[in-house]
């Protein structure tokens, strides 16, 4: 099992020190990503899903953001260009080590492809730059060939012409394809996709999801897929972590999570969305209240003020642990606290 693990995050805390106070954007998150698998992270705005992703690549702006605790262990197994474990949390965010990993071993696809490409350079030059930076012994013309090859592989028509196009000349869907081509140009072992289809139309979203699944099969990379869309996560993920206010509240295999959601928040989310392939409800079953202000999180369980199963004296007094309720199913809720085994501190391998 241990050799299967590509990335291991242990008790990660990323806090932002602002004038108004400390925002605990990520507050004790632990998970593993296995080789070739897709971990889906789902949650609403402010739940810390993007900050978790940015912490892995050390892209959190500092100040005000700081990784105050935890480890981000990258297992660079035998086929990597190094050996053993690297703790990304210990690296200098501007240092050579992390820069050698960014874009090469771990790369990222962002939500808005217009803002993540530089507007002043052609798509091709930006992909070529990444290839030249990370791949030794490749000269300019070879890099250009590789860039065209990559663009073709993500389904961009007339790749040998598009390679010289500027980002604004492409449609949103094509730009996102180009973004994926750039992310895959150095055959990463982990791709972090942060809401990659949120800005796209549904038919284009379907195309991009299909493309990503096909490329994952081809390259065998692991993916961390971040989204707020339950439909998208059901389609792409092998395992799902549900986040709420900086913590994972439930984590399970994708079938288990959708068939047997246990945390009241997960249940609420699944109940509240309209399901197009079920009979129409007269009213949606909404979750009460709003996501609390990050400076004013309720004491005890962060979901306690919106929870339909709120137990006074229990839920507002302490934060429940993320505890196993079944094989591959962990829930952070007192409703299941009879289940013993506490998994917050995952034992090594």
């Amino acid at each position, binding site marked *: 099992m241990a050799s299967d693990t590509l990335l291991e995050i242990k008790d990660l805390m990323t806090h932002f020190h602002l004038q108004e106070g400390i925002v605990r954007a990520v507050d004790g998150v632990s998970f593993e990503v296995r080789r070739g698998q897709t971990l889906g992270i789902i949650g609403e705005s402010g739940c810390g899903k993007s900050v978790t992703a940015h912490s892995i690549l050390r892209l959190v702006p500092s100040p005000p953001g700081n990784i105050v605790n935890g480890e981000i262990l990258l297992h660079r197994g035998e086929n990597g260009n190094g050996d053993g474990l690297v703790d990304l949390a210990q690296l200098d965010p501007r240092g050579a080590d992390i820069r050698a990993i960014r874009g090469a071993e771990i790369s990222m696809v962002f939500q808005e492809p217009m803002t993540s490409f530089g507007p002043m350079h052609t798509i091709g030059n930006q992909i070529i730059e990444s290839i030249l930076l990370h791949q030794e012994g490749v000269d300019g013309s070879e890099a250009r060939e590789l860039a065209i090859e990559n663009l073709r592989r993500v389904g961009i028509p007339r790749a040998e012409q598009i390679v010289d196009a500027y980002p604004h000349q492409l449609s949103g869907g094509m730009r996102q394809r180009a973004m994926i081509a750039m992310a895959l140009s150095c055959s990463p072992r982990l791709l972090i996709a942060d809401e990659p289809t949120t800005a796209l139309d549904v038919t284009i979203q379907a195309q991009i999801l299909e493309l990503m699944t096909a490329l994952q099969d081809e390259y065998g990379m692991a993916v961390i897929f971040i989204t707020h869309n339950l439909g998208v996560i059901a389609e792409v993920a092998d395992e799902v972590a549900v986040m709420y206010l900086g913590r994972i509240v439930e984590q399970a295999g994708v079938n288990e999570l959708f068939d047997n959601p246990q945390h009241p928040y997960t249940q609420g989310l699944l109940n509240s969305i309209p399901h197009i392939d079920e009979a129409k409800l007269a*009213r949606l079953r909404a979750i009460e209240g709003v996501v609390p202000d990050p400076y004013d999180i309720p004491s005890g369980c962060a979901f306690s003020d919106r929870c339909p199963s709120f137990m006074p004296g229990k839920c507002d007094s302490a934060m429940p642990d993320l505890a196993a309720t079944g094989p591959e199913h962990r829930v952070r809720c007192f409703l299941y606290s009879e289940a013993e085994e506490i998994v917050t501190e995952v034992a090594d391998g």
Partner: protein
Amino acid sequence: MADDSDLLLEVNDLKMYFPIQKGLLRRTTGYVKAVDGVSLSIKKGETLGLVGESGCGKTTTGRCIVRVYQPTEGEIVFHDEGEAVNLNLLARQELKAFRRNMQMIFQDPFSSLNPRMTVLELVGEPLLAHGIARGQELEDRVAEMVNAVGLKVEHLPRYPHSFSGGQRQRIGIARALVQRPKLVVCDEPVSALDVSVQSQVVNLLQDLQSELDLTYLFVAHDMSVVRQVSNRIAVMYVGKLVEVAESEELLRNPKHPYSETLLSAVPRPNPHHAMQRLSLEGEPADPANAPPGCAFHPRCRYMEDICQNEVPELTELTPGRHVACHFADQLQLQGIDYSASIQS
């Protein structure tokens, strides 16, 4: 079919062309045909959903109806207590007075509210502008409206920045509804909101509709949300309506190939959903340079020669169902099958 007394709004052959200007002299070199011959009708008290992908002209259609834009061509007739009012023939002053009958709810609750106005000012402004109420009466009406959308009277002196996205959207809804409009154009009212807040706002819009006797044109791209609120759904593609039908009918039994693919592309929150998705190649056509014939033909799996040359008209296939496809009566299209879930 509804007889005319039920109708609130009729739109006939609406066109909105935006000129493309080039060069120093800003000469017009072409037109973006954002809306190109849309005809629809909305009955009193119903919700008509208008769906389509970005750039298909759904927002422009909504804006033409409330006359944010002066349409290039076409008739918009509003049936107001037995009187038919053609909005295009109204003079400026008349239009201003008439505007209180039609209001709009916007997508982005962050940019649609003036940050320098309090909730009281924001919600009260339309009442002042139309001379409906002032002073204490205005405050009372604002307070009543604010309560109706689920905010509190204590919120009145606050500024928009102190509210969450969902609450801001409630302020926007209060501002639109405070003058008791008859028709409300909801332009993607929930797509900028968090998942858990979306359902609250959808429920609120439905409650207010029955309380205040509202008629909605609900413009959105999310098929599941549109289906939740709409009695009928109109599907739009590159400036034209391609299908209009009762919402459950459209879902179960789409008659236009674009409706079929749109339904099939909706991601289902169900990992067991078999991958029977119809892949839709290509991207929506450019409304400045739409393909000849049926605009959907380059992406259509059922394309024949005639589709490349002749524009299909939106025709009534069965009562209440209009389709713009040359083969509407022949194609067997795949809809959404939720028979299993009804039994369970």
